[in-house]
Structure formats: C-alpha cells, structure tokens
C-alpha cells in the first residue's frame, strides 16, 4: 500500500515542452484527477507514471520505490486506456485474466481471481463473450476488471469515460469511485471533463500548457479558483469575467457599483471580477443586501428546472443561470441581484486570484 509522489517531472518532444514541471503527492487510497483541455500535458504526465514515456528529469515515487527507469510491467500498476484497449481476439475472461497469465500464475488461481473481480463489477455472467459482443458500459467494466485483477499498487485511468453516452457515464463515475474506495487503491485519473473531476476526485490538479495551475480539493477548486483560467475552466456555464478597478481606499468599482472589499492600499489596481452564473438571483423589488443590476435579456436557453440567459448590461454581456420561475423572453428587462461574498477578484494582468476576494465559505461557515 503506497502513496504516489511526482516531483518536478519534465518532458519535452524536441522543442515542444509537453510537461514543463509537474509536482504533486497523493496519499494512499486517494483519487487524483489531472484535469485540463487537450494538449495541457495531463496524458503525458499519466503516461510517464505508467512507464509508457520516460521523463527528461524529475522523480516518480510509488511508496518507497522510484519508478523512473522501470519498464511498465515492473511498476505494479493497473491502467484503463482511453480506447479501453480490450484485446478483440480474447473473451472477457481471457482479457481480464491476461495480466495474471502473462505473469505465469496457475490456471486455477487465475480463474478464482477473475471471478472475484468480475462479481465485484457485476460482469460475471459476461465472461464468455468477446469485446465486440459487449455494450459500452460492459466493455468499460471489463477494462476496469482487467486493470484491477492483479491488485496493483496504483490505478491509472486515461479518459476512461469519453466513449460512453451521458447516462452510462454517470453510472460509471459512481461505479469507478465505489470500486476505488472499496479496494482503497491510490488512483490517478485523466480527464478533460470537469464533472468527472468534481464528482470522483479527492484532489484535482488543473493543468494548462504543461503546468499545474491549481492543486486542491474539488471544493477549493470550485470556490477558490487560483486564477482566471481555473475559474473559467470549472463551472458550467462559464464564469463571467468583468473588468473593474480596485481603488486605493479598498473600494471596488465595476458595472456602476462601488463596494468596500478590503483595507486601504498603496495604489489602485485594475482587476477582473468573476461572477458565477449560478450565484445570481432574480429580483422583483429592490433590496439593499445585494449588488443590483438591471439589464436586457438577449437570449434564453431553458434547461428544464433552470434557464440560462444572456443579459446585456452596460455594454457587457452576462450569462446567468436562474430557476425557471418566470416566463422570461428575449427583449425583456430583468432585475438581478448578486451577493457580493460570491465575487472572485483576479489581477487583470497576471490573472492570479487576489487576497481581497471575498471568502463566501468563511462567512457562511
């Protein structure tokens, strides 16, 4: 049983720095999600952990073993690939048993272990079938079983859900998380889908351009994004970013409002204000507790219980998500309120989160 430590791992392909420097540690039994857009280096990082690529520098430690120079087969890992990589000429039974067979385990032992893991994943009745005779979700389970049958010290998942349709995805997220917890296995998951990360991970590393942008719990990442990239990458619809000015008196000015957000400072600073679409409320009457905005509805997009609208407001377009309690339509004027504790403040040039950001968590806690 062991945790994983990745220390300043770098990888370049010619002039392209795929992974600039990635560092994180993961405790035994935790699930880490490497989250980011395509080309951010998350898959390369995972492949280095698996031994399918070798880092130019840095260290990868599993427990007290240094993995860097080990061949994949010597690392004691189980991996689920993006395309699942089930062997088309083998039955589910042979697929799942392959890691044991190739390590020369006795037939009887293989059968016992395969049946155990297959029952855990609910596919014991499908073992005689070939991959082409299985549904997407079933193939997924076979791939999981094959990765877990050897009781690896580390479990790696490369976009394991990308081939599944939405319903099955939701089921498999829960399933993977349950199995991972039950086996108490240290896990690294790669995904570009924030829902995968938020719903499954203990820790998320948001990556961009070969670097970790933020490392933290799903809650931290969502409520205290470290910079504008993370702020906009996490959350659906995307967070609104508006230009504002943080004055030397500690007052923030944006969209016609001036509010106090902190202590006085040496000089004023241009900032970006982040407002999540979900944090808006529709107002019938003026109130003094909330920041108020009045704008014109440009477009509406009902989503069942909720509605997403674009609001034109002083040359800015805001996206808001509200409970669909009123038959709003394009051209209507709408009065919105926003609790200032939910604002996020970022430096306009670096994009980094400012310490003056109100902390909604602390105030509500």
């Amino acid at each position: 049983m062991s945790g994983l430590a990745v220390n300043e791992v770098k990888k370049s392909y010619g002039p392209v720095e795929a992974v600039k420097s990635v560092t994180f540690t993961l405790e035994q039994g935790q699930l880490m999600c490497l989250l980011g857009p395509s080309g951010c280096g998350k898959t390369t990082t995972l492949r280095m952990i698996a031994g399918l690529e070798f880092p130019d520098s840095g260290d990868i430690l599993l427990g007290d073993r240094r993995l860097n120079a080990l061949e994949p087969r010597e690392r004691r890992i189980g991996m689920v690939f993006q395309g699942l990589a089930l062997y088309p000429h083998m039955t589910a039974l042979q697929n799942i048993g392959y890691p044991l067979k190739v390590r020369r385990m006795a037939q009887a032992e293989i059968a016992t272990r395969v049946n155990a893991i297959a029952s855990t994943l609910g596919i014991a009745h499908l073992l005689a079938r070939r991959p082409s005779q299985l549904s997407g979700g079933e193939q997924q389970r076979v791939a999981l079983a094959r990765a877990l049958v050897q009781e690896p010290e580390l479990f790696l998942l490369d976009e394991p859900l990308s081939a599944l349709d939405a319903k099955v995805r939701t089921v498999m997220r829960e399933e993977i998380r349950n199995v991972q917890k039950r086996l108490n296995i240290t896990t690294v998951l790669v995904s570009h889908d924030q829902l995968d990360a938020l719903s499954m991970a203990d820790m998320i590393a948001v990556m961009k351009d070969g670097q970790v942008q933020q490392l933290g719990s799903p809650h931290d990442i969502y409520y205290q994004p470290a910079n504008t990239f993370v702020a906009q990458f996490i959350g659906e619809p995307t967070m609104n970013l508006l230009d504002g000015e943080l004055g030397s008196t500690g007052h923030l000015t944006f969209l016609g409002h001036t509010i106090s957000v902190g202590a006085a400072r040496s000089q004023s600073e241009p900032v970006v204000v982040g407002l999540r679409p979900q944090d808006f409320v529709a107002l019938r009457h003026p109130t003094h507790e909330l920041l108020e905005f009045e704008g014109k509805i440009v477009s509406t997009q009902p989503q069942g219980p909720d509605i997403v609208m674009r609001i034109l407001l002083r040359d800015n377009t805001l996206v808001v998500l509200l409970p669909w309690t009123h038959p709003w339509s394009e051209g209507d004027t709408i009065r919105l309120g926003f609790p200032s504790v939910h604002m996020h403040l970022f430096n306009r040039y670096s994009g980094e989160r400012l310490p003056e950001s109100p902390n909604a968590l602390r105030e509500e806690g």
Partner: protein
Amino acid sequence: MKRIPAWQRLLNLVLVGIALLFFLFPVYWMINTALKPPNEWLTNPPIFFPHHIYLTNFSQALIHWGGLKGLWDSLVVSVGATALSLVAGVLGAYAIARYNVGGNNFSFFVLSVLFFPPVVVSIPMFQFWRSVNLIDTFPAMVVQYSSFTVPFVTWILKGFFEDLAIELEESAMVNGATRWQAFWDVALPSVKGSVVATALLAFIFSWNAFTFAVILSQGHITTLPYILPTLMEGHYVLWGDIAAIATLAVVPIVVLAFVLQRYLVRGLSFGTIRESL
C-alpha cells in the same frame, strides 16, 4: 433502401455476365481441352463439350511429363518461400510500423523492390547461385522466390500494424508483458486474418513464379511453371497435356482460397480491425 429499377438490375446482370465470360472462358477451355483426345484439340468448328471423358492427358501429364514431381517441387518451393516471407515479413513489418526501423524512407525502399521485374536481376542471381554451388536446389529457389514475397508481405502487413491501435500493446505491457509478449499475445493475433490473406497471396505468387524457375532450374528441380513450356516442341504443341497440367496446377490454389475465404474478405478489407476499439 432505394429501389433499383429493373432495367438497371438487368444491365448489371449483363455486364457481370460479360465479365465472367471473359475471365471464365479460358478456364473452361483449359478443362475442356484437358479432357479431349489429341485429334479433337484443334478442330474447326471447335468442340465445346468432349464426346467422352478422355483421361489419358492427365496420366501422361502426371507420369510421363513429370507433373507429379512438378506438383511436389512447386509445393516445397512455395511453402518454403511463403513460410520464410511470413517470418521475415511479419517481424519486419512490425519493426517498421512500431519502431520506424531504417528511418522514414526504408519502407518505401522495401516496396521499391517490387517495382523491378525479376528479369532485371536474373543474370546476376544466376551467377551468384552458381558460384555458391546452390543452383537448382530447394534452398536457392526458396530464398530467391522470397526476394519478391518478403517485400510484398512486409509492405502489406506494415499497413495493418500501423492501423492497429498502439494502446493494445501498451496495455499489454502495463499488464505485465514484455515487448515481445505484447507483439505475440496481442498485436499478431489482432491482425491474424490479414496475415493469413497475405500469406495466401505470397503462396500464389510463388506458385506462379516463372522467371526465377527457369533461371534457377537446370532440370533437377522442376516446378509446374517450368514444366509447361517444355511441352511446346518445335513442330508440335501438346495442348491436351499442357491443359491437364495447368488444370492440376489450379487445384491447390482453389482449395486454399476456398478453405481460407473467410480470412480473404475480412483480412484484406483495410480498417476493419479497429472494430472493438
């Protein structure tokens, strides 16, 4: 489904019929001639159906003209060349596809070997085999035939290996396999159909090889393509005997193609091996 009009279907049938006639008539005429006595080979008007089955051509061909030995020699050389091409070609194709062996132009060089006609290398090869004292032996024939079938097999299978998702082998290696085991357990079985189909084509090339047979044989090893022209004497051509040998030569290929037909269609239709990925 769109319904195809009757006249179009009729046209299809007629065109297919013409094509079939074009390709099958010589086969029919070969068998027809093989079953006729000498005085019926070249008549005017031609005899389209033998009056009675005349099997002497076959016994003549098999015994007197060495058809039986020809079959055996052809079989040994073709099986040998096919086996050698498979071993070298499969490994070569995998090496090129996965490890880019020889750089980017090497695979084209392999292909280019197929471009020049056998006759170009005939004289030097003849000199070579004679100088090493192997002229007119099975090893020389097998190696010489392979000079054509190895590049062929390599080139075709390289494409199939490249089409195979590399994830399959990577997953095998993560699961505990060495590179060789990943190839042997996973990559090779995944392209099995294509390997069988390619092997059959290599076998057919070897079976039909004429130039190399004539160059390398001095009458000791006599493959069927070598025997056939010996039956065309200066003043008289033994059409019935030739037809009988030709008919016998076709049989093994037809049998093989029939046995392997399920691989032929699937194995040579590119892109189908990804189905379960």
